[in-house]
């Protein structure tokens, strides 16, 4: 007897004689399959006899998630696989040996296609493909794919080969999912179901069986004595078959493994994809006959989850319809066609643009995962470049070639560089390689951040925003490290032997800050992205939009100023040791674009492009801020508590009133922008700063704000027109992006004109209502504690401090600027008007005026729809900057 058998016998003897104190002795029973069972009913009864009704025994570590994912067996709401009598009857109708007509095969094939695309749309296998009993059948009939298949040709010669090919396609997708580029339970349901159904046959076997199926279907299509409807079904099945074969080839060739192994795979995959898109497009354009396919009862089992283990309840969900499935598949193919341009990209800048646009498209999880894999697999970017070279190229494209020339010089002739007495120079003399590796060390760190940025762009939109916000801190740290590196680099490359260079090194007027400028540029881009995704995800309520756009405009202005500085520094060669650069005559030729030299003029054109793009967005954000702020005065934008005010009394009314206080507003503001407030740069716009900024607009009427917004939109158009002309042949997808933004600016101008000229009432109100007046009216109506609204900036400072506000007051330069607007009045005049408005807010007369304002603004008969996709259909990627005017009035207060 082996040791293992010995142990097993001992274990059996022990358990067979197991008794429980106070409980009836039970023996282990063995069922027909050899499974051992121990009846513990008496133990359970004994164990629970002292528990009260509803008493819960749990471990300390039990979490809410564990409770939520626990399941009550035979409770239909939780035990999703529980069969009712009706379910049992339906399932019993299916028989694997049933002889299938081609019309029945077509019905199953179509439904499997809907299952497959629904699965691609983030449903679980249990909710889709595993419902099909043919897909998960345990024993495949021997006759499948063989000559004996003639007895049940629909099943054996057509359906099963199609299912094997479908399984092979799913396997390719599944392999990609297993790379964990996307999130389980959000984008894909992994579950713990077996996937052996996917790979029962090799690709060559599947293709061979599909060939046999093709032959059979062609024969049926052309044979005279076959039922016409069966022939029609054969024709449609042939189309599905050809598309399936092409889909399998596309997935195989465009898989990362295949493209790494075979350089020709990309072209082969692209060719298959083009052919598939053409076929599918033709298929979609043909009329769909709903009554051709014949249903097979019991073939799909919606309660199939009972057969598989699951960590959490899986609820049956509706499949996509015929039209939805084909539209989704068309979209999937369209998104997959981006693989080719991605691998053909020849600059980091074009990749940044590519991934930004890709993130806006929100493709299906499979494409997002594939793009992430192509971007970085086996520590190779785009299947061939090292991340270190890639990051160096990324910095070089924005900061210019100087720093890389210095690097090459350092490696070649470190002694000549280290002639000064500076600390950095001494380090260089002692260990030149260590000095070079310092830069490499930073680049390694930066590479991690940059790789993460690209991969974030492949996540679903809510994840993108969350991770962007989370990673901002690490970019902030990186920027700090980069500043130190820049100072050191400035000193060692200056060639000076006095301390002046060390003083200059920390001065932005002298030091271009090559590395940190790039890091700051990336950080600002992420901040802008996080805010804009928030708008697209409907995270901000209308009443928050003025501050969101106001804050957004400030970030964009900081970004613009930063880019302008970089451009000026680079164009003027500031901080460059010209002698050092002149000595750089020898250029190393690199095979790949990531290692090739980037000249200054190319970098300047990159910066110019960014400047146009950021400036245009800054104008759009400013215009939307002004419009949303004016709309707030006209009560076209209302806070939720203000909407619910009428009819409330007692505590409920008090709760609503409290929301209007500066203290509550400051808390909400701090919560909304807390991630930004923790960063070292840009200078955060505190609540106090924000109120001061808004205060600048107080004396302007709504119509003046509209007029200013209109001019700002005009500026955006002009900037974009100039930008498109400037692009020349340096497009990389930027032209379409700028054109889309231009559409948005034009559509917004049209919407604004409509809003301004809608009605006489509207015009009158817009002319009359100033900020102070509207605020005073609102405070009176709400009965809030602080009726003199214009004092926001002073009264908030205390609450802001309490709220842990960022401390440093906004400088005027860092705030959104309105110098060109007709809003600049003297402070004394503003204060006077505020006092007048506050005075107006006293007594019955003020209440009457406030009520008149309420009635007048209730009768505007219009509402504004923000972040509207329909505003400019040509620019669906930019609906965060769009608004339209709806004739449907805003809901009454």
């Amino acid at each position, binding site marked *: 007897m082996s040791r293992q058998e010995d142990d097993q016998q001992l274990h059996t003897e022990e358990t067979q004689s197991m008794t429980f104190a106070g409980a009836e002795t039970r023996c282990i029973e063995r069922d027909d399959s050899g499974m051992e069972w121990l009846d513990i009913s008496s133990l359970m009864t004994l164990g629970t006899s002292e528990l009260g009704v509803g008493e819960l025994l749990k471990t300390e570590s039990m979490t809410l998630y564990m409770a939520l994912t626990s399941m009550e067996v035979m409770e239909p709401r939780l035990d999703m696989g529980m069969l009712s009598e009706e379910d049992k009857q339906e399932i019993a109708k299916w028989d694997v040996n049933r002889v299938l007509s081609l019309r029945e095969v077509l019905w199953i094939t179509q439904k499997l296609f809907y299952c497959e695309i629904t699965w691609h749309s983030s449903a679980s296998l249990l909710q889709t493909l595993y419902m099909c009993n043919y897909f998960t059948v345990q024993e495949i009939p021997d006759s499948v794919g063989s000559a004996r298949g003639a007895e049940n040709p629909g099943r054996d010669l057509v359906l099963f080969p199609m299912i094997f090919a479908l399984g092979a396609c799913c396997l390719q997708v599944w392999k990609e999912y297993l790379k964990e580029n996307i999130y389980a339970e959000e984008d894909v349901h992994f579950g713990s179901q077996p996937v052996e159904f996917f790979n029962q046959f090799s690709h060559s076997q599947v293709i061979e069986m599909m060939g046999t199926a093709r032959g059979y279907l062609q024969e049926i299509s052309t044979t005279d004595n076959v039922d016409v409807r069966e022939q029609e079904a054969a024709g449609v099945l042939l189309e599905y078959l050809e598309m399936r074969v092409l889909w399998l080839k596309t997935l195989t060739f465009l898989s990362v493994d295949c493209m790494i192994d075979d350089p020709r795979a990309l072209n082969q995959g692209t060719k298959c994809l083009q052919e598939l898109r053409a076929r599918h497009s033709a298929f979609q354009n043909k009329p769909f006959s709903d009554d051709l396919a014949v249903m097979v009862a019991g073939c799909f089992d919606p309660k199939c989850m009972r057969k598989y283990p699951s960590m959490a309840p899986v609820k049956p969900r509706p499949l996509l319809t015929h039209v939805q499935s084909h539209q989704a598949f068309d979209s999937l193919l369209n998104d997959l066609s981006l693989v080719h341009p991605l691998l053909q990209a020849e600059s980091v800048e074009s990749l940044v643009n590519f991934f930004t646009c890709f993130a806006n498209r929100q493709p299906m999880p499979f494409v997002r995962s594939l793009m992430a894999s192509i971007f970085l697999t086996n520590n190779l970017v785009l299947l061939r470049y090292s991340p270190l070279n890639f990051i160096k190229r990324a910095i070089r494209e924005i900061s210019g070639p100087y720093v890389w020339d210095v690097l090459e010089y350092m490696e070649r002739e470190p002694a000549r560089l280290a002639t000064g007495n500076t600390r950095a120079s001494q380090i260089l003399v002692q260990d030149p390689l260590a000095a070079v590796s310092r830069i490499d060390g930073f680049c390694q760190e930066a590479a991690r951040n940059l790789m993460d940025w690209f991969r974030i762009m492949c996540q679903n939109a809510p994840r993108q925003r969350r991770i962007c916000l989370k990673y901002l801190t690490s970019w902030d740290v990186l920027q700090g490290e980069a500043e130190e590196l820049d100072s050191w680099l400035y000193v060692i490359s200056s060639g000076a032997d006095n301390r002046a260079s060390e003083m200059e090194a920390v001065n932005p007027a002298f030091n271009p800050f090559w590395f940190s400028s790039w890091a700051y540029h990336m950080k600002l881009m992420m901040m802008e992205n996080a805010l804009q995704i928030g708008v697209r995800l*409907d995270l901000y309520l209308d009443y928050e939009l003025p501050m969101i756009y106001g804050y957004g405009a400030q970030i964009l202005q900081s970004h613009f100023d930063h880019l302008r500085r970089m451009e000026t520094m680079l164009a003027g060669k500031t901080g460059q040791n010209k002698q050092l650069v002149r000595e750089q005559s020898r250029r190393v030729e690199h095979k790949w674009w990531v290692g090739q030299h980037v000249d200054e003029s190319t970098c300047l054109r990159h910066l110019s492009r960014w400047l146009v793009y950021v400036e245009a967005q800054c104008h759009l954000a400013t215009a939307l801020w002004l419009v949303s702020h004016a709309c707030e005065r006209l009560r076209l934008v209302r806070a939720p508590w203000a909407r619910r005010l009428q009819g409330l009394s007692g505590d409920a009314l008090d709760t609503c009133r409290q929301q209007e206080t500066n203290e509550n507003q400051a808390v909400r503001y701090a919560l909304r922008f807390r991630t930004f407030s923790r960063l070292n740069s840009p200078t955060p716009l505190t609540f106090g700063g924000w109120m001061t900024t808004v205060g600048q607009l107080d004396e302007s009427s709504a119509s003046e704000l509209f007029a200013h917004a209109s001019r700002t939109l005009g500026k955006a158009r002009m900037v974009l027109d100039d930008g498109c002309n400037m692009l020349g042949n340096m497009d990389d997808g930027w032209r379409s992006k700028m054109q889309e933004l231009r559409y948005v600016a034009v559509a917004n101008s049209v919407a604004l004109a409509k809003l301004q000229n809608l009605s006489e009432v509207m015009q009158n109100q817009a002319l009359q209502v100033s900020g102070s007046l509207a605020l005073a009216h609102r405070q009176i109506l709400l009965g809030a504690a602080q009726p003199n609204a214009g004092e926001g900036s002073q009264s908030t400072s205390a609450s802001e401090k309490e709220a842990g506000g960022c401390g440093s007051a906004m400088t005027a330069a860092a705030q959104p600027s309105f110098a060109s607007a007709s809003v600049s009045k003297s402070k004394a005049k503003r204060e006077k008007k505020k006092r007048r408005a506050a005075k107006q807010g006293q007594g019955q007369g003020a209440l009457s005026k406030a009520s008149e304002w309420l009635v007048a603004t209730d009768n505007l008969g219009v509402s504004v729809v923000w972040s509207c996709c329909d505003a400019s259909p040509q620019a669906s990627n930019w609906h965060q900057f769009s608004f339209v005017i709806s004739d449907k009035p805003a809901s009454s207060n």
Partner: protein
Amino acid sequence: MSSETAIEYTTYEKETDLLPAIKLIECDLSEPYSIYTYRFFVHQWPELCMFAQLTEGGEQMCAGVIICKMEEHRRRMMDGYFSDDREALMRGYIGMVAVDKRFRGRGIGRRLVSMAIERMRHMGADEITLEAETGNKGALAMYEAMGFIREKRLYRYYISGADAFRLKLWL
């Protein structure tokens, strides 16, 4: 009938209090919860499980329920809003709120939520969070009128595949 005077707000005391509330929640919420979920809440935070009891025709019935919890949140005090000397923040969480369809529009939900917020505030909560379906306009409007903001969107949060908003109120 005067809606306010007839409604009595009570706190969980015993298992029998829970059963009518479970029925109400099962009718109202799309997500199915096991009995363990209810007991997880009420056995650890019984004071945060409150009911709106209504007497009609001499019979008392559960017109509304709110079930909450409060724990230290694993995230450290990074927001700057809270004092620096504290290691962790206390997060209140509103797990379930349901109001009988027949008695809606009487402010029962709002009152239950207000009571829960006040109770959690007294227990030392720094913030209160909850999730609501993105399509549940009524619930969102109620919470937002009380000062909650949409902090995050949670993709495919519910088993139906629907997204949720994570709402947060800083106290």
